[in-house]
């Protein structure tokens, strides 16, 4: 039986997710290969990796949407398998505890209005009608989208869609949030708004796992950075330590060296995301 996390100290000791040598294949192509990872309750983790490194796949496995071909993935000690998710009691409890925001918000917005969209999750979990109405209003207000409640999701801007997609998940107040590239394809202001939302959960009450390849926001959204390459963990440290390891970042295709010519003389600099190397020509 899944149990909710309690106090901060107890939270820190609780293992939310435990992946042991997890393997997952898409049509015989290995997306995850022998991945091992432990996530404690209250942690804020950034999953870093280039496109195709397995970040989204790992999030989907953690969200019980796909299931490992080999190895084991556990959520609070319970095996996360297809059989387990077929049990209504387990599945409902799991969906209440874990929420995922997809990379493409259009995939997540399939109701006639924003209000219906945010109400979808609580409806599926069978909450009382009055509680749903109250919670949806409160969530829309908190996220600054109350004025959008009667609008059709397809009429929203990219930033608004992302905020509504996030609202549709946090309305359930899950203990774990999985976010797949939450700032992708957003304008700078919308990106800031999403980052501010993520920062508001810095108190350790939620476990937040964010897949991203935007190194510049790493320190703001996470206290631990896990680097994936070809479906396996190749780095696991604090954001500062990971950002200082240029060799790791280059190997994982997270940065590239910038090259230019000065009068025919090639010069090489590390990625502009990192500390800029000044030199004279």
């Amino acid at each position: 039986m899944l149990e909710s996390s309690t106090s901060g100290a107890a939270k820190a000791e609780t293992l939310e997710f435990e992946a042991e040598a997890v393997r997952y294949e898409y049509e015989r192509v290995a997306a995850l290969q022998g991945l091992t990872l432990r996530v404690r309750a209250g942690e804020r983790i950034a999953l870093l990796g280039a496109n195709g490194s397995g970040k989204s796949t790992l999030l989907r496995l953690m969200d019980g949407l796909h299931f490992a071909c080999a190895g084991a993935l556990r959520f609070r000690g319970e095996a996360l398998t297809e059989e387990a998710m077929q049990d209504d009691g387990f599945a409902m409890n799991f969906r209440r505890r874990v929420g995922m925001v997809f990379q493409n918000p259009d995939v997540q917005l399939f109701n006639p209005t924003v209000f219906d969209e945010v109400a979808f999750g609580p409806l599926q979990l069978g909450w009382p009608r009055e509680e749903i109405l109250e919670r949806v209003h409160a969530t829309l207000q908190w996220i600054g989208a109350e004025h959008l409640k009667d609008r059709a999701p397809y009429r929203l801007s990219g930033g608004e869609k992302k905020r509504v997609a996030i609202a549709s998940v946090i309305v359930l107040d899950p203990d774990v949030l999985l976010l797949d590239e939450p700032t992708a394809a957003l304008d700078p202001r919308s990106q800031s708004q999403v980052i501010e939302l993520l920062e508001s959960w810095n108190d350790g009450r939620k476990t937040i796992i964010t897949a991203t390849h935007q190194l510049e926001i790493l320190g703001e959204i996470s206290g631990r950075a896990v680097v994936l390459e070809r479906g396996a963990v190749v780095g696991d440290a604090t954001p500062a330590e990971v950002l200082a390891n240029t060799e790791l970042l280059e190997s994982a295709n997270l940065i590239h060296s910038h090259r230019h010519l000065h009068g025919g003389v090639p010069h090489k600099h590390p990625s502009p995301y990192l500390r800029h190397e000044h030199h004279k020509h």
Partner: protein
Amino acid sequence: MSAGVIAKTVRGFSGALGRTLVSENSAHERGLLQALDPRVKLVGMLALVVTAALARKLPVMGALFGLGVALALGSRLSLWSLAKRVWLVAFAFTAMIAAPALFLTPGETAYTLGGVAITAQGVRSALLLIARVEAAVTLSTLLVLTTPWMHLLKALRTLMVPVEVIAMLAMTHRYVVLLTETANAMFEARQSRMVGRLNGREQRRLMVNTGGVLLSKTLEMGNEVFLAMQARGFRGEVRLLTEFRLRGWDYVAMSGFAAAVVAAALAGR
């Protein structure tokens, strides 16, 4: 003509998208059918459709068609829009199917066309088929245009339709909308890169290739949508904030539907 083909296709898909949106909007208008409980509407309209399908007399089918037109007017639906989207299309397809009956049904010669006899019985058969289809399609379309799709699915569920069927219908509706949106985007992208003309062979190849890619993209997108629904607890049941409740007007409507079905059944024997 290359730009014309693609531009026309883009306009076609945009138009289809627009019509989808209009359908959703018309379901929320303040009209006769929109005011009814979806369950009453579903059972009543389906009963009328079955009656139209089983009727054997033209006046009965004409009356059912006339009832459909009256309901459309009362529900603030545009007759012109219905004519363009439903009646003309249904007539065209049904007429193609019914045409051979004009010549092949044995009986008295009513007309001669190019030396080929058209029998009175053949004309009657063709008219019966066309009238039956027009009446049935009109009533079915009214049901869809005056009921939000999710309400319709929930109404089906209360009629004990299996949850698997409901889930399939929900996803099918979503797939169709996604297909239209994706196709629109693909053709707009193609149009923005088109310079010069395509000959007929190139146009056909373009359409075939696009069709295959479109289907793959839509299936993939549809799967993603289904995963997103599952991630928020969806397990096949349609759940709505709106609770269905029968009111006085629903009981009046039920009586009206029953009376129409009985009258049509008796008159159509």
